[in-house]
């Protein structure tokens, strides 16, 4: 039988996935586990109940160094990079020259280190790294780190599990980041993730990745989780998937990500396409990204059209599927601004038929981050 993932890039955990019986698929040029024998539904529910381990080594990791890498990076993102305290991580948007979204990413300032640590999306990493290096040429130096693997441990039991392998890690609160040892391997650990649950993202050198993953998987609370459940978890949490909910045709305002633009940055307007973006902040956009819940159990998938109650097409679903925790379908998409208000009655067009639905505030499942008190 031909292996559909032959010839693709592999993460350091490829053999582990295959050994666990994962179904491997192509994602962003990598052979990745879409699910393990337990299946998407059980993997999803297990992550919300206990803890799930995700291989996200395909994502792009890099360090940005220089005289003032934070100041340099602020040209490409409207986030507050300069004001980020040591030991903290933040979410940011990487902008195009037109003020649309080139990518979304995380950036951290590690304790006592001048360089910033960046994590970008897998499918966009080569383009992002070339873009950042080019735009910041002479002001900062980007060093991609393909020699590092990335694991996410997510769920209410994640802290108790990781504490056994990294003593003291539970003192970290949401969006804090630290260098520490995990299962004997030097790591960069942040208390974050993309499931809406409490949890950690763990960066280790590739050579240590399998040992760290196996140590965590040996814990009774932990189950390996594939891309299928990763997608349903982030969708229930109302989080954007780059290339679907946001891309180079969407801007930060219509994507409802204005919260990621810092107040100081709005005043100073010292980033790419700042005038265009600030015009949208003040004057609004024609459409907006919203959450959608439908009656019944039939999911509306990406690409499904959205209609108002008179049948006029007002938008399109950008992510849609079944939410196992809600035991109901969930979606997000863009609708014209007149229909973007919470609780607006709409129809999703599925197989030519209107499916009654309504605009719904996100997250669909409440976030359970361990915030500082």
């Amino acid at each position, binding site marked *: 039988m031909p292996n559909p993932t032959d010839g693709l890039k592999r993460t350091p955990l490829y053999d582990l996935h295959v050994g666990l019986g994962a179904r491997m698929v192509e994602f962003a040029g990598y052979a990745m586990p*879409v699910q393990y024998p337990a299946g*998407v539904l059980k993997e999803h529910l297990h992550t919300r109940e206990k803890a799930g381990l995700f291989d996200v080594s395909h994502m792009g990791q890099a360090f940005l160094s220089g005289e003032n890498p934070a100041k340099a990076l602020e040209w490409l993102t409207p986030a507050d990079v300069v004001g980020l305290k040591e030991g903290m991580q933040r979410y940011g948007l990487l902008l195009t020259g037109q003020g649309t979204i080139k990518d979304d990413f995380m950036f951290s300032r590690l304790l006592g280190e001048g360089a910033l640590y960046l994590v970008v999306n897998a499918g966009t990493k080569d383009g992002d790294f070339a873009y950042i290096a080019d735009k910041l040429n002479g002001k900062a130096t980007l060093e991609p780190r393909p020699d590092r693997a990335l694991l996410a441990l997510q769920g209410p039991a994640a802290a108790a599990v990781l504490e056994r392998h990294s003593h003291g890690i539970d003192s970290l609160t949401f969006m804090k980041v630290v260098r520490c040892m995990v299962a004997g391997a030097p790591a960069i650990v942040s208390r974050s993730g993309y499931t809406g649950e409490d949890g950690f993202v763990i960066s280790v050198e590739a050579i240590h990745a399998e040992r760290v993953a196996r140590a965590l998987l040996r814990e009774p609370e932990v189950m390996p989780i594939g891309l*299928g459940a990763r997608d349903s978890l982030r969708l229930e949490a109302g989080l954007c998937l780059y290339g679907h909910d946001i891309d180079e045709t969407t801007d930060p305002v219509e994507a409802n990500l204005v919260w990621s633009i810092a107040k100081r940055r709005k005043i100073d307007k010292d980033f790419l396409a700042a005038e265009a973006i600030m015009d949208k902040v003040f004057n609004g956009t024609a459409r907006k990204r919203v959450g959608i819940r439908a009656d*019944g159990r039939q*999911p509306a998938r990406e690409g499904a059209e959205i209609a108002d109650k008179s049948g006029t097409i007002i938008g399109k679903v950008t992510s849609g*599927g079944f939410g*196992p925790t809600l035991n109901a379908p969930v979606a997000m998409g863009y609708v014209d601004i007149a229909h973007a208000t919470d609780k607006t009655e709409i129809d999703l067009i599925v197989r030519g038929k209107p499916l009654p639905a309504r605009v719904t505030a996100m997250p669909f499942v409440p976030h359970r981050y361990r915030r500082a008190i």
Partner: protein
Amino acid sequence: MTDVRYTDQHEWVRVEGDVATIGITKYAAEKLGDVVFVELPEAGRKIGAGGEAAVVESVKAASDVYAPVSGEVTASNEAIVANPEKVNDDPEGDSWFFKLKLSDTGELAKLMTADDYAKFVQGL
């Protein structure tokens, strides 16, 4: 005797007299993963061989179920509409989709036997 035949779209059809019971194969159920929604045809509807008859959606994907043979729908399995996860439990038994009164029993000969289907799946 009952004869079970298969299609390359992974439906099975079990014939008793002039009534065909139709469902999706174990292979299809495993490929789809956890089924969360099923839509079945209403009784009385006439469907031609290869026509769209039902919809099955899993957490991951949506899929059409086609009528392997022509006929008139006589029943649909409401149990899998109420509890779609049953499709994964017993796809080739209790979790049948719908029944058809055959309009042409000769169409059955065009479908795969169990051996043919097993070979077909192995080659996928």
